[in-house]
């Protein structure tokens, strides 16, 4: 234990503590420091400095020893992370390896983690869509989970606020179920994507194919240059870290911004063991940290605490923060903490060949990845035998063909002159899942990790609703492809894909009106411990089918604004 003299306590006392430096923790850091609060940001992993710590960012394909393929020994040692689409030689150093941080799978769950400053914001797929009241009203209308304590109008200004700073490219599409935002110019749909978009608009009255909205600087504004970021250069090597700051990450944006304020202390290698609760004061006074280099246990103190450790880790910290007042975890009077975990269904694809359009091709690369089909099922009313719905990614590309038969100079020449082939089109499903009590995480009673933290037990599974929805996606999208005249349509349910690999795990410390059935109130504030806020994926009452990161950012900025105004009023 560190020396507990008064000076030492003073040195370890801040106005605010943020646990985690990923996409939401970075925002908490930026907002808190921007409002003048001396803020300690704790990160369990190492520091990753923008540009300085992107070792592969400018490497050419031939400079990777195995041309970006992971060696078999690494794949065999790390079967979980190896299933992640981005785990290759160019970005493997940003992923947690299976053995480094074990957990217990009561049911198969691929938990993909990034333990470093910036967390998974370095690795995310950068798709950013607002949620709408069709999402926030979903649980109340359809009778699952609990009612969201907010509506779109509450969060809309905060979407605008974070979009302007992060830089979101997109078009104003005027679709109620996918509200427009503060957009930089959208990336264009290509010839076939545009054809399909027009076809869908003509053929279906409530379906749309739009340019995917993404956190890329298509045309930076002064606020982005001020962050040291410049225009996206269409490299689409984002997972390596971007030297241009072309996409939004904590590393390129919020963390250096917070650092510049002079109000942030960033402490990597700091595993948070628990939040310290003071019974006499009736609130949290700080956090207990284990220094992963020295194994020293250190306490830090602050008036307010933001928990942004990533959804399941946030659950783990809260569950491990026990006291006489909260024997089952901080704020867990209701017993719901750790329960109602949900995720997204990335379980199916539809691919096809496209005749025609051979007079056109594309040049360069599209950071947005192509088109996006917003949810069209059960939007205005329940119309299928499953609840909720799905969005879909949509991308078309012009194939190239090389005759690689034979050997010798004939082969050598053929390899050097690839020819354009036909167009191909593909779609993948992104479905909402229903949070259920039976999908939970909890702490193991006996097994602990190397820092004495209990191992997390994860018990999350698909259900009938998921299977029905997956089949509907396959039917509907293949029908849309068929009516569009696409050929050789291939419907596929992704084999052996466990929950978790979507990397959209959410819930466990959900928001709600009632402390009896939820952990957080409408300000992401723990109902029964008013100076602790949770604004990462753990706070989500339901999952919608949009990518969630933008919503975490907006919730975080809104929650910090509330917390600081409450501090000023003397309420915190």
């Amino acid at each position, binding site marked *: 234990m560190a020396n507990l003299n008064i000076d030492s306590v003073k040195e370890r006392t801040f106005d605010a503590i943020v646990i985690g430096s990923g996409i939401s923790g970075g925002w908490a850091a930026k907002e808190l420091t921007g409002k003048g609060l001396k803020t300690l940001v704790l990160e369990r992993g190492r520091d990753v400095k923008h540009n300085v710590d992107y070792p592969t960012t*400018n490497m*050419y*394909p*031939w*400079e*990777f*020893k*195995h*041309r970006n*393929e*992971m*060696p*078999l*020994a690494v794949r065999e040692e790390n079967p979980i992370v190896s299933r992640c689409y981005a785990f290759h030689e160019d970005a493997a150093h940003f992923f947690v390896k299976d053995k480094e941080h074990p957990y217990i799978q009561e049911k198969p769950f691929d938990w993909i983690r990034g333990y470093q400053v910036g967390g998974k914001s370095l690795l995310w797929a950068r798709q950013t869509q607002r949620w709408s009241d069709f999402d926030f009203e979903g649980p109340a209308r359809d009778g699952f989970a609990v009612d969201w304590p907010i509506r779109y109008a509450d969060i809309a200004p905060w979407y605008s606020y974070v979009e302007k700073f992060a830089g979101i490219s997109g078009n104003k599409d005027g679709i109620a179920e996918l509200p427009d935002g503060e957009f930089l110019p959208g*990336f*264009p*749909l*290509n*010839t076939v994507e*545009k054809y399909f978009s027009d076809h869908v608009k003509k053929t279906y009255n409530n379906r749309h194919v739009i340019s995917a909205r993404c956190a890329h600087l298509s045309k930076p504004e002064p606020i982005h240059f001020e962050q040291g970021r410049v225009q996206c*250069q*269409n*490299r689409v*090597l984002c997972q390596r870290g971007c030297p241009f700051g072309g996409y939004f990450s904590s590393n390129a944006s919020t963390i250096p911004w917070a650092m510049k304020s002079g109000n942030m202390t960033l402490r990597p290698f700091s595993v948070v063991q628990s939040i310290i609760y003071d019974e006499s004061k009736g609130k949290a006074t700080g956090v207990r940290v284990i220094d992963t280099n020295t194994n020293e246990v250190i306490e830090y103190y602050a008036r307010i605490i933001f928990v942004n450790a990533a959804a399941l880790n946030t659950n783990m910290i809260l569950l491990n923060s026990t006291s006489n007042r909260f024997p089952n975890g901080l704020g867990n009077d209701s017993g719901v903490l750790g329960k109602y975990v949900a995720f997204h269904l990335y379980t199916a694809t539809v691919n096809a060949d496209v005749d025609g359009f*051979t*007079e*056109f*091709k*594309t*040049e*360069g*690369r*599209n*950071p947005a990845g192509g088109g996006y089909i917003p949810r069209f099922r059960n939007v205005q009313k329940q119309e299928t035998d499953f609840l909720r719905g799905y969005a879909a990614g949509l991308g078309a590309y012009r194939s*190239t063909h090389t005759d*690689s*038969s*034979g*050997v*010798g*100079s004939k*082969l*050598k020449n053929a*390899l*050097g*002159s*690839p*020819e*354009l082939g036909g167009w191909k089109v593909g779609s993948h499903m992104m479905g909402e899942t229903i949070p259920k009590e039976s999908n939970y995480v909890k702490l193991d009673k006996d097994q602990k990790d190397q820092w004495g933290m209990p191992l997390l037990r994860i018990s999350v599974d698909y259900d009938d609703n998921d299977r029905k929805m997956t089949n509907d996606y396959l039917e509907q999208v293949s029908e849309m492809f068929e009516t569009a005249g696409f050929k050789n349509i291939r419907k596929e349910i992704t084999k052996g894909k466990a929950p978790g690999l979507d990397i959209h795990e959410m819930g466990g410390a959900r928001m709600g009106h009632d402390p009896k059935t939820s952990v957080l109130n409408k300000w992401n504030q723990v109902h029964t411990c008013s100076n602790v806020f949770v604004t990462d994926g753990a706070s989500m009452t339901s999952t919608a089918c949009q990518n969630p990161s933008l919503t975490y950012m907006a919730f975080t900025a809104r929650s910090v604004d509330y917390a600081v105004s409450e501090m000023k009023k003397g309420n915190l």
Partner: protein
Amino acid sequence: MDRRVAIKNLALVLGGATLFPKDILAGGKNLIQLNNLSISPAQEKLLAEVAETIIPKTTTPGAKDMGLHLFALLMLNDCYGKQDQQQFTEGLKQFAAIVAKQSAKPFALWPQAQREALLLSIEQKNDLPAELNRFYRITKDKTVQGYTQSKYFMTKKVVYELVPSRYNVNVPVKTKNTAVKHG
């Protein structure tokens, strides 16, 4: 190409793999150390000739100049499973036996046309032993990959752009040949 340039090119291709320049000059040892399979110096040389037959030196560099057989061995050693490695080594022996049966001359001294004919006969037949087929498939795939993902190919033949700085759609097609690789 002189030896020094050849060694430099090998280093480029192999990146981190272990190389022993002294042994290259001596000629009697392996150029690449493998821990998951056992390949003799003679087998390694034979493989170099097979790779050279697949991607021959023309007016532009060939497999030997680029060390493509060593890339193939590196990939086989690091990225393939036991079964593939065993089939490959077995298939390589079968291949050496066929070569010996066809001619008393070492494979390296066969005319290019004769070497190509033998490889083509393996590529096109499907009644051969599984090991021979697998050996050929892996050698060809990795030789082709090593070639098309080499610095030479990606800067001189089908150019790889690290920073394309654009995404243009509806670009009219003038010729079927794609000058630039996007990927």
